[in-house]
């Protein structure tokens, strides 16, 4: 395996430069990690290398290996390299896998050559990844971490010398993230090249090698991981590192008041699979509680039961008297899915104002406090960034003066800077109206910083 050079890689939309020219060298066995917030152009880099840029964007620069060179401007010239030389580990494997194919044949497709050999190879690779039992499963039967391993198997079966991992840890819990880091390490150990694009600093730290920090289509810092992640020189890198929940300063939590909600001996099962049994939970007014567990443990289900959205199999929930039905609100993991897709945000928020009889001024005050431009409201939910939309979703619930806000992994899809910003807005606003918070997360650091009490199982 030999060194890969990328010379002058840039991406343009007409005359507008989205990714400034940059030179990279990928050494076999050494990880290269691109860090940056969403919208910094880091995914464009992966697509420019693969030749899969969306229509309307063009790349320049070239990819060199040994004496061969492939100009990036021609997207088609690298198609012959797909699978054998270049492979991509896509974002959100649960949606990238073909839902109608079983795991084994799906992975075997990555092998060029005899079908029988492909099956043997796929079989042994899946076995090594601990997926022996899941070979005959369909993607919807897999957990997020398993789907990620299947996608990894499918991407690497062809033996590609360069693996591009595009936000591979998005939506995975900490356990699955650790497994993913191991897989990528193994890939490197076999002498291949790896380019990881992520906003997960923990993953960058685990992979080591070189780190590249990007912002607004430009490289702001480049160096060995140990140096960039320990002694960052650029202020942006420093901000990025300080945005990790571990690095947050301690947040003061308001004192808990009277009881608000009591769940007693709650139990829920889906079919033969028991999610939880005999769970007792109390939440007091103004209190901040976190539910911590790995994905698939039923923590979102428990939250939904407390809100009355899902019926429990056993047990009961008691609410304090005198509170309206709208005092129990929820913040969703994916804010885009929490807004009616065809309705402008202006209409959606003004409907709420009208419905709860609040003056328009209260919306304007909230927009101002959460640093959101009123111009955003003219857009549809899908045209606003995740962090902004999550804050708009927060505003929508705050208009109803809730007593308890159930936040279901509200920041797991946001990059660290946006996460920090969103969580601080959330805590400030809840403290202002004395609303309690039930936070569901798999991030221990986030839970211990933003809540005063953590429940784990």
């Amino acid at each position, binding site marked *: 395996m030999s060194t890969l050079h990328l010379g002058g890689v840039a991406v343009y939309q007409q005359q507008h430069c989205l990714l400034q020219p940059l030179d990279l060298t990928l050494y076999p066995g050494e990880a290269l990690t691109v860090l940056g917030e969403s919208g910094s152009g880091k995914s464009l880099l992966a697509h420019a290398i693969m030749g899969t840029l969306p229509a309307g964007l063009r790349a320049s620069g070239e990819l060199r290996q040994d004496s061969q060179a492939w100009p990036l401007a021609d997207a088609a010239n690298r198609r012959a390299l797909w699978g054998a030389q270049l492979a991509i580990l896509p974002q959100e494997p649960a949606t990238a896998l073909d839902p109608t194919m079983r795991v084994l044949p799906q992975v075997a497709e990555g092998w060029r050559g005899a079908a029988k050999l492909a099956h043997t190879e796929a079989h042994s690779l899946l076995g090594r990844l601990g997926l022996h039992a899941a070979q005959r499963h369909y993607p919807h039967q897999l957990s997020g971490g398993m789907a990620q391993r299947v996608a990894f198997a499918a991407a690497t079966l062809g033996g590609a010398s360069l693996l591009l991992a595009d936000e591979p840890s998005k939506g995975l819990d900490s356990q699955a993230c650790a497994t993913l880091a191991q897989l990528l390490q193994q890939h490197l150990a076999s002498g291949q090249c790896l380019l990881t694009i992520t906003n997960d600093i923990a993953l960058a730290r685990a992979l080591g090698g070189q780190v590249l920090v990007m912002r607004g289509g430009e490289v702001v810092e480049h160096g060995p991981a140990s140096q960039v992640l320990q002694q960052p020189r650029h202020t942006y890198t420093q901000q990025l590192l300080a945005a990790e929940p571990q690095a947050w300063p301690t947040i003061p939590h308001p004192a808990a008041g009277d009881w608000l909600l009591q769940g007693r001996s709650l139990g829920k099962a889906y079919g033969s699979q028991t999610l939880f049994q005999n769970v007792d939970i109390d939440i007091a007014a103004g209190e901040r509680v976190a539910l911590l567990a790995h994905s698939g443990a039923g923590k979102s289900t428990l939250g939904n039961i407390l*809100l009355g*959205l899902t019926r429990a199999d056993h047990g009961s929930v008691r609410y304090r008297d005198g509170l*309206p*039905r*709208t005092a*129990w*609100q*929820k913040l*969703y993991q*994916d804010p885009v*899915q*929490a*807004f*009616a*897709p*065809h*309705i402008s945000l202006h*209409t*959606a928020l003004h*409907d*709420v104002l009208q*419905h*709860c009889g609040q003056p328009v001024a209260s919306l304007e005050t909230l927009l101002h406090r959460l640093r959101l431009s009123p111009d955003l409201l003219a857009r549809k939910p899908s045209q606003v960034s995740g962090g902004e939309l999550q804050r708009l*979703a927060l505003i*929508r*619930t705050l208009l*109803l003066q809730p007593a308890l806000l159930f936040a279901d992994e509200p920041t797991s899809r946001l990059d660290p800077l946006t996460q920090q910003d969103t969580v601080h807005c959330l805590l400030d606003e809840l403290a202002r109206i004395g609303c309690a918070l039930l936070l569901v997360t798999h991030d221990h650091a986030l839970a211990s910083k933003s809540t005063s009490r953590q429940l784990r199982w």
Partner: protein
Amino acid sequence: MTYLALLPWHRRLAWLLLALVLLLAIAGPWLWPDPARQDLMQFLASPSLAEPLGRDQLGRSVMARVASATRLSLGLAALCVLSAALLGSLLGVLSAWRGGLTDTVLRGVADGVLALPGLLIVLIFSAMAKGGFLTLYLGLALAQWVEYFRMTRARSRLVLASPHVEASRLLGFGPGYIVRRHLWPELSPMLLTMASFGMATAILALSTLGYVGVGLQPPAAELGLMMTEALPHYSEAPRLVLAPVAVLALTLAALVLLRPLEVTR
């Protein structure tokens, strides 16, 4: 004009064709008033300035008959599609919303109707009361509502189970709001597409029944019936057959080309 210029060519063509057919249906019967008036002296008279399509085997004005038949076909088809769409989508939303027994019963009825071919239902109805306008309408509408029911039900179930509907319910909004803001924007493009295809199906079914003689009865002017009546005279006056065929073909082409923009996400 600006709106037309934005449309892809095939939809511009479709609107033009549809405008022509509508013009024929609306202005035609006013210019050539009586489709049934016979004048045997003018048996198969050739086209003239006053009668652009000439006269048929009974000396009736072909233009008047074509115009009247077009009006009838378009009117009846629109009525059928409107009723079928209304009934089907209301029941579809109801079924998705209520679930349980309501859903089971409605789905059973719909599957039962679906098991019979659409044209057969219309034939059964026509056989019960030969050639009546009302029976044709009922038959066509009953054959078509299942499509709307099934599509609306499937799509509504997805929408109603989505987080954004749950969020609206938590915010205290009632069923009216959910229909207006969540369901209607999702369903309307699909319903419009189905309605334009449904119009084409209804027009074709109507003329098929006329052609085989179980639809509307003479002396009514109906496209299918006109073709049957004119066939014996095809060698002397092919225009008698070609006129209704041309109207039918143009109408169907316009409706199929008209399909609204694909639902894009």
